């Protein structure tokens, strides 16, 4: 069931921070290319992979999109042998002290291990003291001398989490950047499921860039590909330590189906039917306003695109110790492929408002 497991582990072993997805996109392309008919990159670097349908042209098309970028940090200042950092994407700075990181030094293209540290309280502003410190107070130490640091590291170099992936009992994987590499794995499952079956419409599997920062990747790809409809797969908030029941979902219980402003009711209904028919457990996820996923911008592309959001529950999102259940990834991938198979040649005409 978990053929995607080693692939996912390799995905979270690469940085691919938002706006700097070079390393990760090559891994995805390598895996997807044999599963599709055509591969190219958008002007902003998103990966577009086309699996042609069997219907008569012009065929309707489905865009299945997941972002491949990750949150992280960037060197904002070099002070002697120490580095100051700033955030790329949304991070709770209270998880940073003591975290192992990798400085991606642009000068020598080398990866320098280090740790984030909270300076002793008497070296901070007194209002911090023993309180919670913002990332501007934190320091990265790479264990090198001042001379080596100034020779090898400069402002703007990326800093990625360096927590190694670890399997947890109960079919779970923990590590950083599972948001949203777990969804990339789900898209991979979908493409593999589609190998042995006939589907009518064209499928664009898209790994977008810059979701965690600008959402520019998804917006430009939707414009470029002009799909009939789009399904975004992203992570949902998983129930875990420190996370109350509100707006969270148990891991291992199946994917979530979004309901809200970014979701076309036809698509939600179709997904519900497909899940029921295929015996895939799903749960509705309320997204009353924006979905905070790529769907929010894809929906507004060109004259508008009907969109849907599928969520995979993830514990401790945006920390170096995210936890996902492999079963949820598998189920999300299958749900996607069953959905694609369910689409008839005339389905664009069925996407109507009551």
């Amino acid at each position, binding site marked *: 069931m978990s053929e995607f497991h080693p692939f996912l582990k390799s995905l979270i072993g690469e940085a691919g921070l938002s706006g700097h997805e070079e390393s990760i996109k090559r891994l995805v392309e390598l895996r997807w290319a044999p599963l599709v008919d055509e591969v190219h990159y958008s002007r902003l670097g998103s990966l577009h992979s086309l699996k042609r349908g069997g219907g008569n042209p012009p065929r309707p098309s489905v865009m299945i999109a997941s972002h491949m970028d990750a949150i992280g940090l960037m060197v904002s200042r070099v*002070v*002697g042998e*120490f580095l100051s950092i700033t955030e790329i994407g*949304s*991070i*709770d*700075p*209270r*998880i*940073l*002290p*003591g*975290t*192992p990181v990798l400085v991606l030094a642009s000068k020598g293209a080398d990866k320098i*291990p*280090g*740790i984030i*540290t909270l*300076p*002793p309280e*008497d*070296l*901070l*502003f007194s209002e911090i003291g*023993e*309180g*919670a*410190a913002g990332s501007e*107070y934190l*320091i990265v*130490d*790479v*264990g*090198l*001398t001042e001379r*080596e640091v100034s020779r090898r590291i400069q402002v703007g170099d990326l800093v990625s989490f360096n*927590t*190694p992936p*670890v399997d*947890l*009992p*109960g*079919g*779970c994987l*923990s590590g950083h950047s599972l948001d949203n590499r777990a969804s990339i794995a789900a898209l991979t499952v979908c493409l593999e499921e589609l190998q042995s079956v006939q589907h009518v419409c064209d499928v664009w599997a898209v790994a977008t860039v810059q979701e965690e920062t600008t959402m520019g990747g998804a917006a430009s790809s939707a414009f470029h590909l002009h799909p009939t409809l789009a399904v975004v797969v992203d992570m949902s*908030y998983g129930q*875990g*330590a*420190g*996370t109350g029941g509100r707006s969270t979902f148990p*891991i*291992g219980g199946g994917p979530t189906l979004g309901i809200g402003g970014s979701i076309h009711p036809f698509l939600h209904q179709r997904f519900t039917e497909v899940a029921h028919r295929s015996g895939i457990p799903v749960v509705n996820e309320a997204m009353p306003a924006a979905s905070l996923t790529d769907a929010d911008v894809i929906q507004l592309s060109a004259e508008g695109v009907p969109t849907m959001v599928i969520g995979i529950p993830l*514990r*401790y*999102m*945006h*920390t*170096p*110790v995210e*936890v996902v259940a492999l079963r949820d990834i598998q189920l999300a991938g299958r749900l996607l492929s069953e959905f694609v198979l369910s689409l008839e040649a005339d389905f664009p005409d069925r996407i109507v408002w009551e």
Partner: protein
Amino acid sequence: MTNMLDIGRAQVQLLEKLCNTVGVSGDEAEVRQIVLDEVKSFADEIRLDAMGSVLVRKKGRSRNPMRVQLDAHMDEVGFMIVHEDGEGFYQFERIGSIDGRLWPGKQVQVGRSHQVGVIGVKPPHLTAEEEIKQVIPEATLLVDLGPQGKAQVGERGTFVSNFRRAGPSIISKAIDDRIGVAILIELLKHAPTHIELCLSFRLQEEIGLRGAKTAAHYFNPELAIALDATPARDLPDYAGRENTTYNTRLGLGPAIYISNSTAFDDPRLIRFLERTAIQAGIPYQFRQPGRGGTNAGAIQQSQAGVPVISVSVPHRYPHSPASIVRVADWKHTLNLLYLALKNLNRRVIDA
């Protein structure tokens, strides 16, 4: 420099092995086993005391050899599992002094099987802006071992090791005091013949300097050296003021103590170590006097009293998932003690 000991691949491998153990105060068995394996072919006598400390004696070959005790602690800070909440979630309580701000977002390992788990927090998306300015209460944190992960109440755990070489440095948890343990083992392997070398690998240092007193009572040494790792707080000040509370600095060699919260170090031994370092061209520094304790205090007041001094390897970010130590500081500390033992005679403390 001739006659100096080196830190080679074997020494680094031993330190890594020591750092990778889970040896939290109160259950140091894993470290103890490594120590026993390492010392057995060099020791004349090996004894476990009532608390579980390893006491090692190597007799001198000269007549009436001087009895010297070297001391390091095997334990490290960590936590104990105190309650099972079900579905792989466990409550824990810290053991030793750990800044509670270090737990969130970390990988940890539990028990002798080194079962890996995580201490997670809710996502920033669900966290109010005001909340981010408050420290996450330690009591709300849980160890997550995965839905089918199992641990026993009472099992101890700590951060995953994170051991790695980084240029001139080593990054790892538990540098304090596995580096002291590694140095003692190396000194045993190169013990001078005119000394009766008494080594105490002690436990429960991190929970109140327990364990030191009994070892000194057993050996009744003529003098003792406590070997530990001491914080280097040599970071830049946020506001650009001078950092006057650095304690020690990385890269400046072994830190010789003058006083700490438990003892005044013996002035004769301070001068002797200083002389030894200068003559051999070994860099050294004095640790800023004041707060922080070692086992020296307990040893000093054993039996009729023991002249004692503390020497420490400077390391940054003590009691954290990843401390940093310079290999050169390790080597210089080893050699300072190696030469001190070689040059030592009773005149040093008779003076």
